[in-house]
């Protein structure tokens, strides 16, 4: 009866009380090397507990079940829990999914839980921990050669595992170190060799696990994500076996090297050459042509090489500038670089194939290669020598070479050649006055057009003179009179031509003065006309007497004195008549 009562009470309570089922975690943010405890707690006695799949975790302990029931002041409390210890396998946000129980035909679920797993943290020492001896005797250390390098200055990271008094079974990499903003080269380690060295003032044994050469590619604070390892260790215990040997306990332990920060200095701006392409180290630069004298159609190789120590793979070589008469093809790049711990050494080269197109001498200008010397902290520039290339034959010559020519004959082909200087010159002043557009130019241009009206006027005048027929005749007769008179003077010693000329002179004089024709010339007519012109009758009679005298004297003998007298008389009469008419 009593049992029934209790059962009844229990049922009643169970009905009254709220069913609680939840998941509790020890922390929601933990490092990769830390443990997580998760409890699934309920206040009822549920059945068929189904654990969630712990994706991303490894169960290192559990499940362990625990039931507790208590009566306090008549109140009953019941608690049942399943506990697990988990270790995260990866970084990031992990989700622990729902767990399920069944109670009175009903299914209850927990809330999913988000767990943030960060990089491994250094664990505080716990003196009561059973793994104390492992913590104290196992260290992973990242040795960085230089935490304050220049850009492109090589630094090395060496991961060493120090251990003392414990055995190592093996290790497993949990997270690989990441080198963002670094150029990195891993140096393979073929066999792990334990060595002895001092660490924290004590003699330790160590193994070099990993060596990496890094070239920072960016200035500023750069971080190296740590390396995390899970190491199987053998811990000695105080117990000994029957042979007196120490009994070893096997365990696993996580170690991480911790995040490292490297402060990268930028290269100085002062004295930075213009053609600097980022080479840092110590180099030698050479530009070597395979040949410098070649025939048409041959090619030459120009090899630019940089040898030395430094970031050989991380910069570009200078490009040669060649005259456009040389055809240059894209280079063949070659790298012979070793990367030991001290940084890259070796040689890189660009080989250009150059084919000349025309005959002549060409110059490839010196090339400059600049690098930052870490030893002195300054920029250095190496210049190659000027390369002279002479091409012996031109393409023009080969085109005619096949033409048939007698053997042994020296054919002279019309080859284009560089002309020699001119030996004679006529120097002129540099600032020459420009003729076009000057006053002189316009003057000369318009002068013919200005002359046109002058010529027209001149011709008009001439025509006017020509058209005056009457005046012209007078002028002509007057001229003839003078002409015959002067002829008469010349013939003064020859009687006959003298009188002919004199007569003509007098006739023409009359023609000019009286405006008459030869047909009208009779003595009466002449007299009448002369008198009507108010000539003195005396002069008229003298004139007529003289004309008659001319006719007679031509045939009659006369002395030279008479001739002279007649001439003088004629001149006197003509001048007298001239005045009177």
């Amino acid at each position, binding site marked *: 009866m009593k049992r029934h009562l209790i059962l009844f009470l229990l049922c009643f309570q169970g009905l009254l009380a709220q069913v609680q089922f939840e998941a509790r975690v020890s922390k929601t943010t933990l490092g990769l090397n830390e443990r997580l405890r998760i409890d699934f707690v309920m206040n009822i006695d549920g059945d068929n507990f189904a654990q969630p799949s712990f994706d991303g975790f490894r169960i290192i302990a559990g499940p362990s079940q625990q039931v507790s029931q208590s009566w306090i002041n008549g109140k009953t409390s019941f608690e049942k829990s399943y506990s697990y210890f988990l270790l995260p396998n990866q970084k990031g946000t992990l989700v622990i999914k729902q767990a399920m129980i069944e109670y009175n035909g009903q299914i209850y679920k927990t809330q999913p839980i988000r767990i943030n797993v960060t990089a491994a943290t250094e664990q505080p020492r716990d003196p009561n921990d059973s793994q104390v001896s492992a913590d104290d005797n196992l260290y992973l250390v990242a040795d960085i050669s230089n935490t304050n390098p220049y850009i492109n200055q090589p630094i090395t990271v060496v991961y060493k595992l120090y251990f003392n008094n414990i055995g190592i079974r093996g290790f497993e990499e949990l997270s690989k170190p990441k080198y963002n903003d670094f150029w990195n080269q891993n140096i393979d380690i073929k066999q792990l060799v334990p060595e002895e060295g001092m660490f924290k003032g004590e003699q330790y044994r160590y193994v070099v696990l990993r060596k990496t050469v890094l070239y920072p590619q960016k200035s500023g604070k750069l971080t190296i994500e740590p390396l995390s390892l899970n190491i199987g260790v053998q811990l000695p215990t105080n117990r000994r076996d029957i042979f007196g040997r120490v009994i070893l306990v096997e365990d696993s332990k996580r170690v991480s090297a911790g995040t490292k920060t490297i402060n990268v200095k930028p290269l100085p701006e002062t004295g930075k050459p213009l053609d600097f392409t980022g080479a840092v180290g110590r180099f030698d630069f050479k530009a070597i042509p395979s040949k410098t004298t070649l025939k048409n159609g041959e090619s030459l190789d120009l090899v630019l090489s940089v040898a030395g120590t430094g970031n050989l793979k991380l910069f570009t070589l200078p490009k040669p*500038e*060649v*005259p*456009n*008469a040389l055809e240059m093809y894209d280079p063949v790049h070659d790298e012979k670089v070793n990367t030991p711990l001290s940084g890259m050494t070796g040689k890189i080269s660009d080989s250009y194939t150059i084919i000349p197109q*025309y005959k*002549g001498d*060409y*110059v490839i200008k010196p090339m400059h290669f600049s690098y930052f010397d870490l030893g002195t902290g300054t920029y250095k520039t190496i210049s190659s020598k000027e390369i002279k290339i002479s091409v012996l034959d031109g393409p023009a010559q080969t085109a005619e070479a096949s033409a048939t020519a007698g053997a042994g004959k020296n054919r002279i082909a019309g080859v*284009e050649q*560089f*002309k*020699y*200087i*001119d*030996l*004679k*010159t*006529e*120097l*002129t*002043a*540099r*600032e020459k006055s*420009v*003729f*076009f*557009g000057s006053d002189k*130019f316009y003057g*000369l*241009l*318009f*002068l*013919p*057009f200005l*002359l*046109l009206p002058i*010529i*027209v006027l001149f*011709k008009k005048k001439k025509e006017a003179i020509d058209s005056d027929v009457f005046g012209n005749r007078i002028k002509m007769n007057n001229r003839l009179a003078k002409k015959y008179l002067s002829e008469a003077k010349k013939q003064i010693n020859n009687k006959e031509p003298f009188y002919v000329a004199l007569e003509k002179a007098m006739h023409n004089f009359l023609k000019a003065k009286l405006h008459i024709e030869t047909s009208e010339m009779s003595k009466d007519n002449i007299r009448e006309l002369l008198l009507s012109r108010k000539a003195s009758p005396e002069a008229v009679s003298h004139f007529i007497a003289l004309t008659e005298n001319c006719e007679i004297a031509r045939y009659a003998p006369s002395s030279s004195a008479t001739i002279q007298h007649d001439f003088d008389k004629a001149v006197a009469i003509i001048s007298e008549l001239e005045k009177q008419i």
Partner: protein
Amino acid sequence: MKNIFYILLLISQVFYAQTGFEKGNLLYQNGKYEEAAKAYESVLDGNQESVELYFNLGNCYYKQHQTASAIYNYEKALVLDPADKDVLNNIKFAQKQTIDEIKVVPKVGFAKLLRDFTGIYPFDTWAWITVSFAFLFLLFFMGYYFYQAVTVKRIFFVGMFVILLLILMSLSAAFFEKSHFDNERPAIVFAESADVRSEPQNASSTTFVLHPGTKVYVEETLGNWKKIQLTDGTEGWIDSRSIKEVKD
């Protein structure tokens, strides 16, 4: 007395210039190109020039592999005489030494035909041709005006109008050539590497890079910048210190 002194001074200068030229020739003959160039330059300093002087100077620089200076002097010679065969021959040699290879895009169409025709003579020669045509016109007019025979008169009359047309033609050719001469401003790149930018600012992006000896045409000037056009028609702005204008 003073006049005589001036005349003497002038004569001595001419004499000196001539000797500078001859001295240069002698040095060139002996292969002393650098000193020969100096001798020729001294003639230029005396404010005198000639096609041959620029040609010889260009040869000196070519022999010293100073391509930019060589092309610059050949271009100067070509300004004085655009048809000099020796200069045109040697400038080809110098141009093969340059680093930039820029295509010469041929101009086509009516403008090219016109330019080909007017380019036969420099504008000053066209001016003289115009003047001589004007006098010929006067002669023809006189022939027309004074000759009595009708056929001859007619020939002279028609000839007059033909010559009038020729005058107009040669005059416009002279104007065309003059404006072409004034507007065409060739320049040679002298800087080891000259950045040509899309805008006249240092901040603007570099479109392409030119090397010594390349011929460009200056179109505009803005402060320290010059707008240039290449022979293939590409345009850009260049620092005025990196080029040297041929007609300055």
